[in-house]
């Protein structure tokens, strides 16, 4: 007795789902994660990869099966069956992608919010955030307000703060053909490499001098265009000590491919040591003066 086709279909579907989940979980395609939002990103990647694998294997399997099973035999010049459509079937395969896409959309919205993507751009000053929150929110709704009530300049895009409890290390990033320059307003240091302490939230305020560049650290899973005339923000918390590449990801001229730098994630002690050794002379003297 033949196995009912519904049962076969069910079994194939289950095998396919398990295979997709297994591949999504076990095939590693991403570089190491070195920021707080990278594991969040990797979770989203795993979901998308699993769903994609299931759909791709299913569709390609169906295609190959059809090509083999329903190939035209030599000498056969007949036609196939005259099936012009099947409304319930079409409703099913409209509904499945719609549900999947809706699920993926809501899930990635959640991920985006956890990355801090929905945070307002205007509260990048660590001072009196809560007091300003309501007003800032209204300002961000109107969008065309060029200046905040407190005189801050407009931020045009990027990832804001994911949590406002930790102290934020502000860094000013200037991109130009063909280098990034990092300026630490608190300590007055200017450097060609970005040095950050492990576990502390860092906020980059970025602007370009000449053409559009993009700041990208693959291990942080973060990228933001650096635009002339339109400051942008990027907030992240490094979670793994090491040196990672900073890559310019927007075509910016002949040496675009060579526009690279490094971000060095230090242990907090190591970062303080780096700060001390690189502090400009006069600032260091001024800081040291009260103790002498």
């Amino acid at each position, binding site marked *: 007795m033949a196995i009912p086709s519904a049962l076969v279909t069910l079994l194939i579907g289950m095998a396919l789902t398990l295979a997709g989940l297994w591949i999504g979980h076990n095939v590693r*395609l991403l*570089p190491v994660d070195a920021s707080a939002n990278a594991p*969040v*990103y990797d979770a989203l*990647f795993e979901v998308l990869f699993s769903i*994609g694998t299931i759909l*791709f294997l299913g*569709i390609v399997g*169906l*295609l190959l099966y*059809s*090509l083999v099973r*329903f*190939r*035209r*035999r030599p000498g*056969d010049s*007949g*036609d*196939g*069956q*005259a*099936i*012009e*459509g099947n409304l319930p079937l*079409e409703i099913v395969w*409209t509904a*499945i*992608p719609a549900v999947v*896409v809706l699920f*993926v*959309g809501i899930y*990635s919205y959640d991920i*985006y919010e956890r*990355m801090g*993507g*929905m945070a307002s751009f205007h509260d990048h000053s660590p001072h009196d955030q809560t007091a300003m929150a309501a007003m800032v929110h209204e300002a961000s709704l109107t969008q065309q307000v060029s200046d905040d009530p407190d005189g801050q300049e407009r931020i*045009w*895009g990027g*990832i804001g703060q994911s949590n406002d409890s930790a102290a934020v290390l502000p860094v000013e990033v200037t991109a130009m053909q063909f280098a990034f320059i990092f300026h630490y307003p608190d300590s007055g240091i200017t450097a060609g490499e970005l040095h950050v302490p492990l576990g502390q939230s860092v906020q980059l305020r970025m602007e370009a001098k000449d*053409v*559009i560049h993009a700041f*990208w650290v*693959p291990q942080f*899973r973060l*990228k933001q*265009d650096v*635009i*002339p*005339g*339109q400051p942008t923000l990027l907030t992240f918390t490094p979670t793994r000590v090491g040196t990672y*590449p900073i890559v*310019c990801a*927007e*075509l910016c*001229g*002949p*040496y*675009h*491919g060579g526009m690279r730098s490094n971000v060095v994630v230090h242990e907090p002690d190591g970062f303080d040591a780096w700060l001390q050794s690189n502090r400009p002379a006069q600032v260091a003297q001024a800081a040291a003066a009260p103790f002498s």
Partner: protein
Amino acid sequence: MTIANPAELEQSLQPQGWLKYFSFSLDHKVIGIQYLVCGFLFYFIGGALAGVIRTELASPLSDFVRRDTYNEVLTLHGTIMIFLWIVPVVNGAFGNYLIPFYVGARDMAFPRLNAVAFWLIPPAGILLISSYFIAGAASQSGWTAYPPLSLTTPAAGQIVWILSVLLLGGSSIFGGINFIATVLKLRRPGLKMMQLPMFCWAMLGTSILVVLSTPVLAGTLILLSFDIIAHTGFFNPALGGNVVVYQHLFWFYSHPAVYIMVLPAFGLVSEILPVHARKPLFGYTTMVYSIMAIVVLGLIVWAHHMFTSGTPPWMRLFFTIATSFIAVPTGIKFFNWLATLWGGKIALNSAVLFSCAFIFNFVFGGITGVALAQVPFDIHVHDTYFVVAHFHYIVYGGSVFVIFASLYHWYPKFTGRLLNEDLGRLHFLLTFIGFNLCFAPQHWLGLNGMPRRVAEYDPAFTTWNQVSSVGALLMAISTLPLVINVVLTAVSGPLAGDNPWRALTPEWLTTSPPPVENWAGEAPLVTEPYGYGEHTCAMDLGGLSGRDLWSSGKS
């Protein structure tokens, strides 16, 4: 005494034979072939440029061409492949050749406008390519020409690029108007819209996109040229301009441009599969609605190209949702094609192999596309080789594979001769392997940190770049069997007869090649273009009750 008939006079002045392909011919079939051959010539040029790119990237150093030359090469590659190869071929070549047949007309609605639209293309293409030799430097700001980079690179090359794209955009708009008028107004009396072959719907949808979005690109490029020549400040931040506005305007055209390249391909596949599977096209009505849904959604997704640009959070969210939902109508089309194949009697010839490889590639590109629509995902891989891989899976794996499928399917109609199947299958195998070898590794490269449009890269990426370059070499080699096949067949191929595929669509209900006005007599009224299939004999006996068998045997 005879009176000179204007039609006859014009007839006599038109060159005959092969010379007509170099003339200002008004025959839609001649214009279609002109588009096709011209497109293939530019494809070979664009392919050679791709070869330069892949050779440069075979090593991590910038050691093959100069850095600014590399940027010119990648700009020309993108511009040629989009504006001079895919758009003119899927729209101009197959649209012009097939649409009048499908609506039962003897020509397009505006034959002269049609000829003008074609004859804008060769000068625009030559202008674009010659800018490298004459103007001193071709455009080197990418096919996107983002300011302020495009304002700072050598001005002459950028202006020539703008002029050339404006000419090609004009050609595209003329063609779009012509297709809309032909499909809506030139249908044979008695032929209803819902009886048209699917390619007509695809061209109608495409042409709506062309007419709505191309003028926006034209306006944007004119403003950009003002910034370059007259030093205005529309997009120049030093003069108070806004560079992100350019990106919005540019992508308002250039995202629909993806559908302008892909929707006609969807239409062509819908024509090819039923003929070779000997089955009706599955779900005609939903196919029509899904084309129109793609047209509408295609107009409101452009900012997903700008997720890392200066865009506020609400905008990122809106465009994520809108983009994701394009997967729904697109998915419907793919399931319908699979259902068309299911239970058919599929001839595994070159046309079908290329069509099925199109389904394989496009599903892959579609899945990465849905992933890219998610803002958090895109923030990591935007402007990397992941995106390069994705869009080549869409425009090469999608549109170009369909162009090849269509060539094998309609070559007997164009010439009256059948292409060689062995060479065709060799062409397919080399193209399919080469393509996947070239572009699949690029997904990994992008995820792991290789940005696009670079001449030099981290040596850690060398191996997969070399694999990709080998794939590109295979793709280059794969054009040889195609060219040999087309030339040999044109000279001495086996005669095909009028209808080698036993097809039912109107272009096959005439001689091959067809006469000047398409049919010797009246145009046939084809109300069931997909009326293949056997209604009783081929029924699955296992699924029927005894009473059905009895009644079917009685009739």
